[in-house]
Each structure stands twice: as structure tokens, then as C-alpha cells.
């Protein structure tokens, strides 16, 4: 997978600095898990943090800090090999990107979709400490409910695709949108579009649902 749309570099800097909310960080992490280019850029943003660490004057630790650390080393075993989650993910198409597992589980098949409107299902992540994170599944050829609503939003396509004025967004691509970007994505024909979205304000479903239903029922 080679994504064509990436998070803004200022977003990666905030992620690197630990200054991005957990919902937006989850979307960035999911993108990083499929984007070699952004992992490399993240190494650069982390290097800025490392250099700032270098430049700082230290703050003295307690007198017994060295002894305590040495004592704890005595209880350390030989290092163990880390888990192979990353390898696993590459070979099973039913698995969500690993960084989304804590929020939505591992399997696409087992996602507990909730109907929220014609052609649209969603799942809200429960255990997000700040901002809002959700999965959306939109039937082919429909408009997504993700458009200007006054706050920031970041969306990553997991399956399917959509098009809007910013271009064609397919699996792995991220739309990292400024406050005032006008866009009205329409999902590509063929398969449903599944995406994960972070927003800093809860989406007002009544608002967009009304707009979406308008052509059919003349609200």
C-alpha cells in the first residue's frame, strides 16, 4: 500500500510532541502503520524532540537514583523478543490496522455497525480520552457526512474510496483538514467506503442527516 495523501507535517509534529489528542493520534497511528514515508518523517520530528532533550540543562535526580536503578537492574531478565503483531497484520485482509485494535477490535467481520441513515453505518470508539473517534461505512456512490462543521477533522480511508475537490482518496489515504476547508466527498462506485475519523467536536448527525435526506423527502 502506498498512500498518496498524508497528514500535514504540523500534525506529525504535534503527534511527535505528544500534543495531539488521543482521537487524532489514533488516526495518525493507523496511517503510520501503512505509510513508510510518514514513518520516516516521524523519525525526523522525533529527532527534533531528541535534540531539544540534548540542549536542556538537566534537573538533578535524588542522591540514591543511581543505586536504585542498579538495584532494579539486578532483577532484569534477558531481553525478550517482541510480539509479531505487525507481521500478522500484513497477511490477513480481515484485520484492521493494529493501532485501531484497542478502539474497535481486530476484525472487520465482527464490527458492530449501527445504522444511522440511508447507506450509512457507524461505530463510536468508547475508550478515547479526548476528542471523538468513529468508524463510518458509507454505501457506494453516496456523499459522506464529513464536511465543514466548524471544527477540525481527520479521516483515513480503510477500504473503498471517495472523491472530492481535493482528489481521489483510497485505502491508506488521510484527509487532514483545516477548519474552513469546503469539501463534499462522494464514495466511489462498487464497494462501500470504510473510514476512521477523528473530530474535535461531536458530529451533529441531525444536521447532516436532514441535509442528506432532503433530496428524497423534502424536509
Amino acid at each position, binding site marked *: 500500500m502506498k498512500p498518496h495523501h498524508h497528514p500535514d507535517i504540523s500534525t506529525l509534529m504535534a503527534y511527535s510532541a505528544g*500534543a495531539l489528542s488521543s482521537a487524532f493520534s489514533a488516526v495518525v497511528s493507523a496511517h503510520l*502503520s501503512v505509510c513508510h514515508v510518514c514513518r520516516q518523517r516521524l*523519525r525526523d520530528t522525533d529527532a527534533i524532540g*531528541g535534540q*531539544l*532533550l540534548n*540542549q536542556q540543562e538537566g534537573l538533578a535526580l535524588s542522591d540514591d537514583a543511581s543505586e536504585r536503578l542498579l538495584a532494579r537492574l539486578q532483577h532484569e531478565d534477558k531481553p525478550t523478543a517482541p510480539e509479531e503483531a505487525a507481521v500478522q497484520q500484513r497477511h490477513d485482509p480481515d484485520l484492521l490496522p493494529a493501532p485501531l485494535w484497542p478502539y474497535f477490535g481486530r476484525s472487520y467481520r465482527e464490527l458492530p455497525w449501527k445504522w444511522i441513515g440511508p447507506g450509512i453505518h457507524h461505530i463510536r470508539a468508547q475508550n478515547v480520552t479526548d476528542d471523538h473517534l468513529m468508524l463510518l461505512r458509507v454505501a457506494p456512490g453516496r456523499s459522506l457526512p464529513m464536511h465543514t462543521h466548524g471544527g477540525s477533522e481527520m479521516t483515513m480511508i480503510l477500504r473503498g474510496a471517495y472523491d472530492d475537490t481535493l482528489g481521489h482518496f483510497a485505502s491508506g489515504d488521510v484527509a487532514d483538514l483545516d477548519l474552513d476547508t469546503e469539501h463534499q466527498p462522494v464514495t466511489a462506485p462498487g464497494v462501500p467506503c470504510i473510514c476512521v475519523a477523528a473530530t474535535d467536536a461531536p458530529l451533529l448527525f441531525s444536521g447532516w442527516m436532514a441535509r442528506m435526506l432532503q433530496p428524497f423527502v423534502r424536509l
Partner: protein
Amino acid sequence: MPYPASQDTDNPVYWSAQMTAVAARQDIDAFMRIFAHYGPRVQRYLVGMGVLPSQAEELVQEAMLRVWRRAGQFDPARANVSTWLFRIARNLYIDSIRGESHWLVIQEGLEQLDELPPEDGATSAESFADGVGLDRAIDDLPPQQARMIRMSYYEAKSHSEIAKELGQPLGSVKSSLRRAFAKLQAALRTAP
């Protein structure tokens, strides 16, 4: 003090060598030199982020134990010791202070990805110049950009918080940070 900091403290190559000694032969002296040099800096970082000093000390110990356990994964071609420690300290901060218990597992998974052979024919990591050029580049940033970088990295302030505090539109904060990154990245990729 049984482990005085070395005099050669500004040279990232020196610290990479210490780290390699820890990985190769579990060299406790090298490990404690890293602690003597970086422990107080990590403490400063965490206290700056608003962590109580006693809790910060505990996290410094935890960070060093991670350095010890994962020494074999340190790759001097990819990162300096300072970058590696920054990453560990930041991850521990997010995990324990912000209470996001998934964070460490997610980050470890992401780090493993680059240890696998590339799946899409992408080239391996570009070579990583040492931190000397970056050091100068940070000092040379215009004051406003330098301030935003510090507010972000050292106070974990979001872009909107920075915008509010400096009385600037959010878009200007983002574009200033983009410009700062371009300068710093150029320094990273150029050998001094």
C-alpha cells in the same frame, strides 16, 4: 558519585557507542554513563510537561529500564540516543500521565514495522546525519518559530492552545511550524 558524566558529552557518536556496548555485552558502566548524562535531562523534560518531580523520577527509572531491555533494538543508523530516549520518555508520559494505556503497545508495533523488510519496494531509511547540524538549525530559527517548537515539544500544547496563547490564527501557527520543520529537516539531512 560513582558514575560521573563523561567529558565527551556533546558527541552523539560517543553516546551511540555507549549504547552499542550495552547491547553487545550488557555493559553496566556504559549504561550508567547514559543514565548520568540523560537521566537529569529526561527529568527536566517530564517536570516541564507538568509531571510531579517524584513521579517524574519514577518515570526516569522506568525509561532507563526500557533502554536496558531494548538495547538490542537501538540502531545508530536510524536515530541518536537522545532521539531514542525522547521517544521512550514521551511514550511513558502519554501512557501513564495522560492515561492512554494502549499507546506503548501501538508505538512498539509501529517501531517493529521498520525492522521488517519493506513490503512495497520502498528504499531503506535515508542515512541519518548526526545532531550537530540540527543543534545549530534550532538555534538559528526565528524566535517565533523556536517558541512554537518549544511550546509544542516541551509543554505538549496543542496548535489551538499555541494559537490562543500567542494571539495568532490557527492557520499561521501551522504554517510557521511547517516552515520550521523544513529548515530543521534540511539540517538533519546534511552532514555538518
